[in-house]
């Protein structure tokens, strides 16, 4: 026996021969079969990424809109026991010195009662239709620059700086757009452009014309009546310039946490509550995102099992029908690990090609498509959430699962008796 025979075949030798065999098997395999396997892998990958991505995207779309249009990257708001931010003009001037500051909008708000049919005669015992809500005061130009609010006016037109007698009204307050007639839920009926509503705030009452109807899928706008800042301040009895909210936008790449810290370091924390968009995100939204993520992963998991079974069957059928081929390989001295690796490589390549095509579809087609054409859900514009790290993780899961699914049947066939395999017994 030569010295060579005493040397166990190394991993690299087995890997090299395995790859040599796999490459040729793949090259000379039936192209339709290969295409079909790759298609299964691509769909599995898309299932893994897109299902969870869209479910999470429903909430993410809502969060993004909230951040983009309502609260910005950082928001300063009144303390819970206060009705305004103290020394708002000073705070506003500090805000404008944040490194990376882009824009701000100052909003005033007060709890109000809105009535629509207050002019009609009612029978004894009846009450006028009316609802409680927020009367939000804005500077139309500043708000337009910040959130582009006018784009959400679905009927009528946006406010001008001299529209003292006009308001915009959120669609959730109107029966026509939110036709809910459940007990305990009230909204305003028979409101059109030009209708008059009566607003009562802290005993002050005034009639306003409805100039426009807002549909933004952002609660801060859709659940409120919006008027000029000067009007809201008058109605809530504010003689100073202390506002309820200052929403702040930062330049791209600016860290909101650093901006928040800047404001706290400059004493803004003494006048109002300083939060990043993430801080201000309602916990239930995060919970929903986590739930949808789990739900999406569970649905995707089924796809993963199906893909694993597909690869298992493909490799098993391939190995079992080539039992003699495997026997000959072993007969001429090819290590069983090398043969095993060749099947694992094949499974790996199928999965990898499927993933690469899937990646292209996700990042090159589906994600940009949903970004340009969001899914129109009642509470948000759904997008596809697919970040690189999460997608890579899913790709790794698919690769590992596929290779394992290729390993098991190959191992089962390879361990059979060499001579029996060669002779076809």
């Amino acid at each position, binding site marked *: 026996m030569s010295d060579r025979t005493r040397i166990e075949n190394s991993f690299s030798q087995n890997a090299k021969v395995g790859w040599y065999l796999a490459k040729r098997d793949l090259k*000379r395999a039936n192209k339709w079969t290969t295409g079909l396997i790759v298609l299964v892998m691509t769909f599995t990958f898309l299932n893994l990424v897109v299902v969870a991505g869209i479910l999470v995207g429903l909430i993410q779309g809502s969060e993004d809109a909230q951040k983009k249009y309502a609260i910005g990257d950082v928001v300063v708001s009144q303390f819970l026991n206060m009705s305004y931010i103290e020394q708002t003009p000073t705070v506003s001037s500090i805000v404008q010195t944040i490194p990376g500051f882009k824009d701000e909008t100052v909003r005033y708000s007060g709890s109000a009662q809105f009535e629509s049919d207050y002019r009609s005669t009612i029978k004894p015992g009846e009450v006028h239709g009316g609802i409680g809500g927020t009367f939000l005061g804005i500077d139309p130009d500043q708000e337009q620059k910040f959130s582009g609010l006018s784009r959400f006016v679905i009927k009528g037109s946006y406010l001008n700086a001299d529209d003292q007698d006009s308001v915009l009204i959120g669609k959730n307050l109107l029966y026509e757009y939110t036709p809910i007639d459940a007990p305990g839920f009230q909204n305003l009926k028979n409101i059109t452009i030009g209708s008059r509503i009566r607003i009562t705030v802290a005993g002050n009452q005034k009639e306003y014309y409805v100039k426009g109807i807002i549909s933004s899928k952002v609660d801060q706008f859709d659940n409120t009546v919006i008027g000029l800042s000067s009007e809201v301040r008058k109605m809530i009895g504010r003689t100073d310039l202390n506002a309820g909210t200052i929403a702040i936008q930062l330049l791209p790449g600016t860290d909101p946490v650093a901006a928040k810290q800047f404001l706290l370091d400059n004493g803004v924390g003494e006048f109002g509550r300083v939060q990043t968009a993430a801080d201000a995100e309602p916990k239930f939204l995060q919970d929903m995102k986590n739930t949808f993520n789990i739900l999406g992963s569970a649905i995707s998991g089924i796809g993963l099992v199906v893909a694993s079974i597909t690869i298992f069957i493909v490799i098993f059928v391939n190995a079992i029908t080539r039992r003699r081929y495997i026997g000959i390989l072993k007969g001429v001295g*090819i290590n069983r690990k090398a043969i095993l690796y060749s099947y694992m490589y094949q499974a790996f390549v199928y999965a990898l090609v499927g993933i690469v095509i899937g990646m292209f579809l996700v990042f090159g087609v589906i994600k940009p498509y949903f970004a340009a054409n969001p899914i129109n859900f009642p509470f948000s514009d759904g997008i596809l959430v697919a970040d690189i790290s999460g997608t890579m993780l899913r790709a790794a899961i698919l690769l590992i699962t596929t290779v394992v699914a290729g390993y098991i049947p190959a191992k089962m066939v390879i361990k059979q008796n060499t001579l029996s395999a060669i002779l076809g017994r």
Partner: protein
Amino acid sequence: MLQVEHLTKIFKSGDQEIIAINDLSFSVPVGQFLTIAGRSGSGKSTLLYQLGLLDIPTSGKVLIDDVDMVPVSENERTAVRLNDLGYIFQDYAILPSLTALENTVLPLLMQGYTIAQAEAKAKKALEKVGLLDRINNLPSQLSGGQQQRVAIARAIGHDPKVIFADEPTANLDSETSEQVIKTFLDLNKEGQTIIMVTHEPEYAKLAHRTITMNDGKIVSDVMNHKSH
């Protein structure tokens, strides 16, 4: 040196035991061309499989360079087959998805040669069997004789100590058979040890020595003085 001591192979079929080879002992010196003859079912192919470490005998020893290969692990047997033994099967047993060159290269790669080195050695082996012009052909593009020559090239490419051939001419016409036998004789002239199972008495006589089997036993073991 290949040596066999009290080699026995028994197949079980239900309650029945079939003694395929029965207590055989002999040795094959380096450089010998040995043919194993006998009628069908005499145990000659079974003996070849035991000698070539493709099967495990029921009892007895198969010694290669004085090392008994019967008790060693499957991995080690595979390594010995790779490095010290070469096989030629009756139906060629070349891999249909690999070209003539790739079939010949594969054992060399397993031995640790680089692809370039393996291809160089494989081409030499294919040249030796007269197939240098068909190296990129798949088995389906080759005749039976050419396929058998690819099998021979694969068997000799890695310079084995012993070549085992199991009725290598059984599926070939007489002209091609003679070419294959001539290849074996040429290899043996270069010092290659060859053990060949054959049905053909005229080919058996060309070897140095012929063992004839019947019912799993050696009935004659003769030196062929007219060999070569």
